[in-house]
């Protein structure tokens, strides 16, 4: 669940007459309570500092990835351990070095660090995008020859090893 969604929910609940909101699915559990919810309830103090068990993966600029619990493009719930590999430039995305060559990767492929994932053509220069860590390709998020913007998710991968 992204911040925007959380904000939206907060807004809706706030403007409603509900004093307690509790949402749970496979990925997320969100509780909101207004003070009226505490009448006749004795709740013990527990302040929550930032959880320590979160890792953010941030590698070099040439093959930037970001951990994200939910890719923007995907509607269905997604395994939070998946990582998006995003485009580091505005470009055209090619899955293969030439129209007659086979694609660099297919869904299900396991790749090593340094393996080429795709070509990003920008200003007539063919840039090879390399994997920055070993991973398995779970999903290819853009079509061959599609125009992509900076930061656009290209692959959904599962980190290996």
């Amino acid at each position, binding site marked *: 669940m992204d911040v925007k969604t959380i904000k939206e929910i907060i807004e809706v609940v706030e403007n409603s007459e509900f004093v307690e909101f509790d949402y749970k699915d496979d990925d997320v559990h969100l509780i909101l309570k207004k003070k009226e919810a505490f009448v006749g309830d004795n709740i013990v103090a527990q302040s929550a500092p930032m959880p320590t068990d979160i890792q953010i993966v941030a590698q070099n600029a040439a093959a930037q990835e970001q951990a994200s619990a939910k890719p923007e493009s995907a509607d269905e719930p997604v395994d939070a351990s998946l990582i998006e590999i995003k485009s580091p430039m*505005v*470009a*055209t995305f090619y899955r293969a070095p030439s129209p007659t060559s086979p694609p660099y990767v297919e869904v299900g492929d396991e790749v090593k660090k340094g393996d080429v994932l795709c070509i990003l053509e*920008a200003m007539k220069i063919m840039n090879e995008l390399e994997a920055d860590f070993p991973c398995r390709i779970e999903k290819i998020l853009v079509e061959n020859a599609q*125009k992509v*913007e*900076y*930061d656009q998710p290209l692959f959904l991968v599962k980190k290996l090893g």
Partner: protein
Amino acid sequence: MFRKILIANRSEIALRVIRAAKELGISTVAIYSTEDKNSMHVELADEAICVGPALAAESYLNLSNVAQAIANSGCDAVHPGYGFLSENPTFVNICKDLGVTFIGPDDKTMSNLADKAKVKSILNKFDIPTVPGSDGSIEDIDTLKKTAADIGYPVLLKASWGGGGKGMRIVRNEEDLVREFNAAKMEAKVSFGKDDIYLEKFIEHPRHIEVQVLGDLYGNVVHIGERDCTLQRRHQKLLEESPSGVLSEEKRRKLHETAVLATKALGYQNAGTLEFLFDGENFYFIEINTRIQVEHPVSEMAYGVDLIKEQIAIASKEQLSLKQEDIKLKFHTMECRINAEDPDRFYPSPGMINKLFIPGGPGVRVDSAVYCGMNVSPSYDSLIAKLIVKGSDREEARLRMLRCLNEFVIEGVKTSIPFFQRILTTKDFVSNTYDTNFIDKKFLNKS
């Protein structure tokens, strides 16, 4: 006319271009950094392409990403706004290579006009006065004396390699000249490692007055009157008005004629601004700006023209539809640049805007991309709104501006609003007797 314009800029100027394009039925493409994802220019454009991270050098100034965005978008024209790539001839060239029209001058004109010495020599042929000075650094005392005598006192000695006032000396008569020259040399040596000094006429109480011009591809040039931008802090314009309140009708006509002549002499096309210093008697050309300027709305509101639409029409090879005799001054206008900054120390004040009321009512124009809940990013310049008002005369405009400043509610960031509220009630501003040094020397020291 164009089908689709990509706007290579952000914030209020991007909105300004989107507005003009929409009114012309042209579709629009925004570019944005990840930081600007929730910006109004992204929201209001028909399409938007992310071109990089927050840092402008890696997004809005990233030639490769912006160029590829132009190619990917399928646009047929690019508007650069001001700042960023707007005065970069390489970018103009890239647009040409991509087969899209850059809305502005061509790359050669842009390069040529950035060379001040070249511009000066062209204008001098047409008897258009520039600030008189020595031809480069002065080598010997004889040249020094002769040049100073030719130009007339007071003169200004300046370090050729310097800046920020170091090695700068005002000399009011010949007796002091040699002593001050030597002192300036020593100071320059200490400060910049080189002791080259040049000499220029010192203009005592300069007003900064500029003329807005439009030139089409067929040699037609019109002016849209002048803007008085004398109110500056460290050479940054803060408030602009049109017309200037310090010009006689005769001087104003002369200035306008000079600007049109200079534009033709320089072969300039599209919207441009010719900046002059005015010492109460004479005008001295400083430079030509080859782009739309932040303060263009004061001219638009004073004369009832739409400069961005004119820019687009000119770039699409139309003839100027405006005739000089139809361009009539309708109002006195004034603009304040509302920055997110500390009004006393002028430090930027980024942050989340959590309360907002934008002034409205008669005679008010606001150019802004600000909204309640917006984050003012520290990554970009601090201009958050341009507040422009008109009146039937300068005093009505001034009082309306004060009314609007008073009405403007922005919470979450500090703004320059209190600064303007003080400025607009000073005697010097009311009587219009200040010069370009007013804020730095007089107002800030006094307060």
